[in-house]
């Protein structure tokens, strides 16, 4: 166990509120009657369903997939019957309803038979492992849910360091800490599989120093051979140490340049939960059909960490943890800093649901009205990406998106530190999210209008060509006609000339005979 070698700019010390949900071991949630599986769960292409209403499915059966590389399939989390493929509300900041596969569970929770397991994964190639991981539908379980097989394919890049992210810096969330305490062996196995896939020289596990039990569990779990290449590194508790670029800075003192990815500096970073999912998929043959999440907040009586099947309605889990409906002010998916509000409790949990935070009145606080920016500069002091939040706010508000990009808007990790310290209570991150999505929309519109311009130009070209071809045809026809006429007149002329010649010759002849007779 060693300490961090670097430090990142800014950051905040926040009250962690983690202890309340760590009183008891992780429990499995009771099986719900209905499972709702959205076809779009995370970054990537939407999936096509492979089942239809009325079909029976087994636990772990593939139910939707896509040909796109940037996507991950989904599996039936339990056995049952497909009752519908219809629009249901999904966990997304838009609160929109999207296509979901609805499964009525039969309570048997039965697998289709023997699962394909690879206990001796050491003999598999990197490609084989990536295929298994993609087929298991594994995505990053820390937050954004980026399909893991893509991050596991460094391509030309030489990977020096593989980082396992166990920082879990956001308040209230404790599922990664509990997993590290309870399943350290699975985490190390997953880490070894990932290491084999990306061919990394050394592995670093970064954990915040407010999780001594997790650090101890993982340290005790390592054998002498593993200690050669796996190091557990304690990082100071400072939000957002779990941000990818921030953790890389802490553990390796490397900075990932703007608009580049960790692989560009020879680093790959995965979450500890993802490592467990990888181990489950490869060694046990279990696809990603459940995940561990924290159910917490002032409005639940028994905060806990729960292993829940994907697709379980949120109400089912909140009720299991003793939700007090009267106390509930706001339901957040994710943590208080980066999460977003969920409008309907019938929304299912998805692969990226790491926490359900049921806030009571005390936690939400009084709604604050935003006041004008006083240019105090606090936001720039705490920004872990070393941006200038007040400038970004200014340009985003004015919709000067070129300027926001000049100020590196897309390096913002939306951690919320700036909004947290803002004395004017300006929802700064909200402006950045608005500006980012508006820029992406402009980009899409530009591509579409470029295509429309090309098609229009081609149409004009086509019409012009058709006109020219028509004229060419007309001209040729005229020529042909003229030629025929000319030919005709030519032959007539020669006939006439010939006749004249003949007449002339005749006259000549007669004259000659007359002359000779006269003489």
């Amino acid at each position, binding site marked *: 166990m060693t300490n961090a070698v670097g430090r990142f700019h800014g950051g905040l010390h926040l009250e962690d509120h983690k202890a309340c949900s760590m009183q008891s071991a992780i429990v499995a949630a009771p099986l719900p009657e209905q499972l709702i599986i959205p076809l779009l769960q995370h970054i990537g292409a939407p999936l096509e369903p492979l089942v239809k209403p009325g079909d029976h499915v087994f636990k772990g059966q593939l139910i939707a997939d896509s040909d796109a590389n940037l996507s991950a399939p989904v599996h039936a989390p339990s056995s049952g019957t497909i009752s519908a493929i219809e629009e249901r509300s999904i966990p997304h900041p838009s609160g*929109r309803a*999207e296509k979901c596969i609805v499964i009525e569970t039969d309570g048997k929770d039965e697998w289709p038979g023997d699962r394909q397991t690879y206990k001796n994964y050491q003999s598999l190639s990197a490609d084989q492992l990536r295929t298994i991981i993609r087929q298991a539908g594994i995505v990053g379980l820390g937050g954004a849910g980026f399909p893991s097989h893509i991050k596991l394919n460094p391509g030309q890049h030489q990977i020096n360091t593989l980082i396992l992210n166990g920082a879990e810096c956001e308040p209230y969330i404790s599922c990664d800490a509990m997993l590290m305490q309870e399943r350290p062996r699975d985490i190390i196995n997953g880490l070894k599989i990932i290491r084999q896939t990306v061919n990394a020289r050394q592995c670093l596990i970064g954990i915040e120093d407010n999780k001594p039990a997790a650090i101890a569990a993982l340290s005790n779990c390592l054998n002498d051979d593993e200690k050669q290449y796996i190091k557990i590194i304690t990082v100071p508790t400072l939000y957002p140490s779990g941000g990818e670029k921030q953790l890389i800075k802490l553990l390796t003192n490397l900075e990932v340049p703007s608009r580049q990815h960790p692989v560009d500096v020879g680093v790959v970073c995965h979450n500890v939960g993802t490592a467990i999912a990888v181990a489950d998929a490869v060694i046990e043959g279990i696809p990603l059909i459940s995940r561990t999440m924290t159910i917490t907040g002032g409005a639940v009586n028994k905060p806990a960490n729960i292993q829940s099947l994907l697709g379980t309605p949120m109400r089912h889990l909140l009720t299991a943890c003793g939700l007090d409906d009267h106390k509930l002010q706001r339901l957040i998916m994710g943590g208080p800093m980066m999460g977003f509000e969920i409008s309907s409790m019938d929304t299912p949990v998805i692969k990226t649901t790491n926490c359900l935070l049921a806030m009571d009145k005390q936690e939400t606080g009084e709604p604050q009205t935003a006041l004008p920016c006083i240019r105090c500069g606090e936001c720039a002091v705490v920004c872990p990406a070393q941006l200038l939040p007040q400038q970004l706010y200014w340009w985003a508000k004015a919709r000067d998106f070129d300027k926001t990009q000049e100020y590196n808007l897309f390096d913002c990790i939306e951690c919320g530190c700036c909004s947290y310290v803002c004395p004017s209570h300006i929802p700064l991150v909200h402006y950045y999210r608005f500006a980012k*999505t508006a820029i*992406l*929309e402009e980009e899409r519109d530009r591509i579409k209008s*470029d295509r429309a*311009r090309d098609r229009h130009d081609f*149409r004009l070209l086509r019409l012009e060509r058709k006109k020219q071809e028509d004229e060419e045809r007309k001209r040729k026809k005229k020529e042909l006609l003229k030629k025929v006429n000319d030919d005709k007149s030519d032959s007539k002329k020669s006939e006439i000339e010939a006749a004249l010649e003949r007449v002339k010759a005749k006259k000549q002849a007669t004259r000659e005979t007359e002359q000779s007779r006269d003489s």
Partner: protein
Amino acid sequence: MLEAILILAGLAIIFGLLLGFAEIRFKVEGDPVVDRIDAILPQTQCGQCTYPGCRPYAEAIVKGEADINQCPPGGEVVIQHLADLLDVEPKPLNADNGEEKEQKTVVIIDEQICIGCTLCIQACPVDAILGAAKQMHTVISDECTGCDLCIPPCPVDCIYIVPLEPELTAWKWPLPAGEQA
């Protein structure tokens, strides 16, 4: 005195030659301002600006024949960008040209009613309608710009405007509450 005149005359000749060479060597093909205006315009090719397409409108703006506020599909955003580019004051959309749509739209053809007359195909500025004489026609909605030019020529009124629902991946965060959207 003579020296000074000769030096200045020599300099004038050298720079004149340099400028002449630069004009030939670095000659700009086409009109870059028209290209830049054309890049801002939405390429709907709807003709609501009274010009037969986006590029002719761009050319008319450069010649000073048209104002910057005649493009309803582009709306305020395009007017703002044009104003920035040409360094003039933005102005509200000219109501004579039409209104800005609240949501993007495309058209669909009711294939049950379509008689296959090909009139809409001839009207479409981006070749986004597929079909042949006396065969059913259909709109390639990915290519449809929402110009609605195919609607007037249709003899059986089988073309409808439908709002374009953005996909979830194209969802846009709204501005914070209390801000002018």
